[in-house]
């Protein structure tokens, strides 16, 4: 027998300790029948025999067999039993459980014996993470959740700042200068717990939800703490982190004495906060109920607190069932109820509900840039599914899925022909609440301005636009100049870096794929120099690998991102948001 490495010994030991009854049954009950083979998008897209759920799980099952199976101990080769022996095997296992499985549970639903492959993946992940075997992005996010209390390392100031920005936007939209986003309102009916992506990068779903609450006249609040519904305890298999994140949210909700906690549209957020974390953190029973925003919207529509006009969403819409919602939370009909009332043409994706394929961004995959290539390769299954619907908009109820699907659409060039436009546009991905908010019939409806004029405080601010495509530079320059900003441009990273030092811009919009110095290199150098480190950066790109900057965070993360083709409304909204926040921060510092 080979000498086992220290890590291998530690892995085998912790594996033995953490195995519970349900794991044992899943290990022992697999008959290697192969029924689940075709359920996994990794196998379907690649045809690689190593990618079937059973083949992947056998790499974990072999340890169980070596430790517990009678024949496995007597004749290991006979049943494929083997403990982990080397560090290389640990790396191989890391590649399987983090890079080849999103824990979507589609195979669990398709196993005639009920083998829960995803639970076994969770077990293996937890043992690996303890030994430091995990993708960098997972480690960074775990650290941020432990130390700062949210997955994007957002400070309390930045969080409150974003809420204030959203409040100002909505004051204008509602025509109500007194409108306030309630924070820490004691005794409110519910506290709204969100995904940090909504705060850091894309507040459109926040605005949509707040708009719904406002017009429905609800008594609610945001919490100044414990506001992150995401939980890398689930993706790392670490129950202690899972319990910690859950307890942050529960304890604050208890302090606020709310009756309910409403979770924004996030698949793993709802699963962790409602079902897993109360068990992990020994928080049962909770003195309040936990529901999804989707359930709340169903209630509001049912009792007439919000009225929808589907003609406001005239283009065909399909729905992607987030795995965690459909298979682990039983939320399948609520989004359909909302979409059928908010859109004229709702089309089912086949298969759907519990049978839906993963968006390929689940299980923390969006934070693991080392597996981006494989993720996009196996996304073919999802891309084919979406293409067949002929929809213009893919609605979903999860921020991970929004990012995952955006990458799929971009990579597989999924477009919709709007007839009035010359080139068919890439499909739009959005949360269900955004379509509901768009369809809301509002008394004395306030007309939305397509491009909001910049606030006085940011008027005349200087934006450095870096892109190697002259057309794009002209497009962004025109848009920003018309909106009252000063614009300087650079068409490669090198020139961009020089201009960042000489022009002292207030904001940089940055392309990623450029000849010479790539956007990623540029960004790292910019952030590493004291002179330029604090210039806000807004990434505008067609390349998917920029996500490593959001999650790996060797340097401070970018301040905003947007996928090309450029949506002018979103571009201006993000530029306004970043600049207004930076002006506010400077005022506070001064």
């Amino acid at each position, binding site marked *: 027998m080979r000498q086992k490495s220290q890590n291998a010994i530690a892995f085998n030991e912790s594996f033995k300790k953490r195995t*519970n009854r*349900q794991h044992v049954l899943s290990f022992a009950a697999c008959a290697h029948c192969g*029924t689940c*083979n075709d359920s996994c998008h990794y196998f379907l897209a690649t045809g690689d025999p190593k990618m079937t759920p059973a083949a992947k799980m056998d790499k974990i099952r072999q340890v169980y067999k070596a430790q517990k199976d009678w024949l496995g101990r007597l004749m290991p080769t006979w049943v494929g039993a083997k403990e982990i022996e080397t560090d290389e095997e640990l790396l191989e296992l890391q590649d399987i459980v983090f890079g080849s499985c999103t824990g979507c549970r589609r195979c669990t639903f398709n196993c*005639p014996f*009920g083998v829960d492959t995803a639970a076994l993946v969770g077990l293996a992940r937890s043992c690996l993470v303890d030994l430091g075997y995990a993708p960098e992005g997972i480690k960074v996010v775990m650290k941020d959740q432990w130390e700062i209390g949210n997955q994007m390392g957002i400070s309390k100031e930045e969080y409150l700042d974003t809420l204030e920005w959203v409040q100002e936007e909505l004051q204008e939209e509602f025509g109500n200068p007194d409108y306030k986003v309630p924070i820490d309102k004691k005794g409110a009916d519910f506290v709204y717990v969100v995904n940090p992506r909504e705060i850091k990068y894309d507040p459109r779903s926040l605005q949509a939800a707040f708009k719904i609450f406002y017009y429905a006249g609800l008594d609610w609040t945001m919490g100044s703490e414990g506001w992150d519904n995401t939980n890398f305890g689930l993706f790392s298999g670490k129950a202690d982190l899972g319990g910690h994140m859950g307890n942050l949210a529960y304890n604050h909700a208890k302090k606020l004495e709310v009756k309910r906690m409403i979770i924004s549209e996030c698949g793993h957020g709802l699963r962790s906060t409602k079902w897993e974390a109360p*068990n992990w953190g020994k928080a049962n029973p909770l003195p309040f109920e936990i529901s999804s925003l989707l359930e709340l919207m169903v209630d509001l529509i049912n009792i007439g607190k919000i009225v929808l006009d589907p003609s406001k969403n005239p283009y065909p819409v399909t729905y992607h069932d987030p795995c965690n919602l459909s298979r682990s939370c*039983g939320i*399948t009909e609520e989004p359909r109820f909302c979409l059928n009332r908010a859109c004229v043409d709702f089309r089912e994706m086949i298969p759907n509900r519990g049978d839906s394929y993963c968006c390929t961004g689940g299980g923390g995959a969006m934070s693991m840039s080392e597996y981006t290539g494989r993720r996009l390769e196996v996304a073919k299954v999802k891309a084919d599914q979406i293409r067949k619907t002929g929809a213009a908009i893919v609605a979903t109820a999860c921020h991970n899925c929004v990012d995952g699907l955006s990458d799929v659409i971009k990579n597989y060039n999924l477009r919709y022909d709007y007839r009035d436009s010359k080139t068919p546009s890439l499909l739009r991905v959005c949360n269900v609440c955004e379509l509901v908010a768009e369809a809301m019939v509002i008394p004395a409806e306030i007309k939305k301005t397509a491009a909001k004029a910049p606030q006085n405080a940011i008027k005349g601010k200087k934006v450095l636009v870096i892109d190697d495509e002259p057309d794009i530079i002209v497009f962004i320059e025109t848009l920003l100049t018309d909106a009252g900003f000063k614009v300087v441009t650079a068409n490669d990273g090198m020139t961009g870096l020089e201009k960042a030092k000489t022009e002292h811009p207030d904001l940089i919009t940055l392309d990623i794929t450029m000849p010479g110095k790539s956007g990623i290199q540029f960004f790292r150098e910019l952030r590493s120099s004291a002179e330029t480190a604090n210039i806000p950066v807004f990434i505008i790109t067609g390349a998917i690998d920029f996500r490593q900057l959001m999650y790996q965070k060797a340097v401070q993360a970018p301040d905003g991102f947007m996928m090309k083709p450029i949506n002018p409304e979103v571009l201006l909204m993000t530029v306004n948001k970043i600049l207004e926040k930076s002006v506010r921060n400077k005022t506070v510092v001064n």
Partner: protein
Amino acid sequence: MDYIVWKDLGPLTRLVMNQLHYLGLLFMIVAYSYKIYQIFQYPSAKEGTPPRGDHQKAIRYSYMTLAMPWELDTQKHHMYRYVEFALFHIAMAVGIGFAFILPMAHEFMKNSFIIGFSKLFFVLGFLIGISRLARRVYSPAMRRISTLDDYFCLMLLTLWMFSGILAAPLKSELFLFAYYFFATFFLFYVPFSKISHYVYFFFIKYYVGKHFGHRGTFPKKGSMPTVKNV
């Protein structure tokens, strides 16, 4: 050819049929009892959240999916394989029934309908066994997940079915001996092998049903929640 005369059976056949076979059954019961005891030594995952669905209904559904191939997306698209799976397992049940009833009611088993019925399933079991074996050998995905134990069990079951085809008419002691030899061997071997999945099935399906039922995921396709007072 005439039926076997029971009192004329050789001592070896009698030993396997009447003693070793039942001893094997006893061994299997003891072995499984111990295995189940071992499984229950592991802590069960804790669930303290309030339920969203109906546990009982979900547990029933969990067991029933075995007979509802349309509920499993992959089986729905491979109905041929499901029919194979169902017939193969029925053939195994017929084989076990045949082996245990025969020593107690040999005259009754000479009924031509029973012989024909058993033979039909032995033939089906044998053919499906060969087809499954071929699939395991030729499909790279199946080969990848197959252990020596998987091949061994399938080969032996297929041979057992073959011996059943020859033994079912109850006219040859040699074939009957072969049939009981395989049956007895299985009773001793099965608790060690992957065939044990049929025992674990009852436990895992309970837990899976309870888990997904708790969250309102099982039975599949959730129903609309009732309107709450906002």
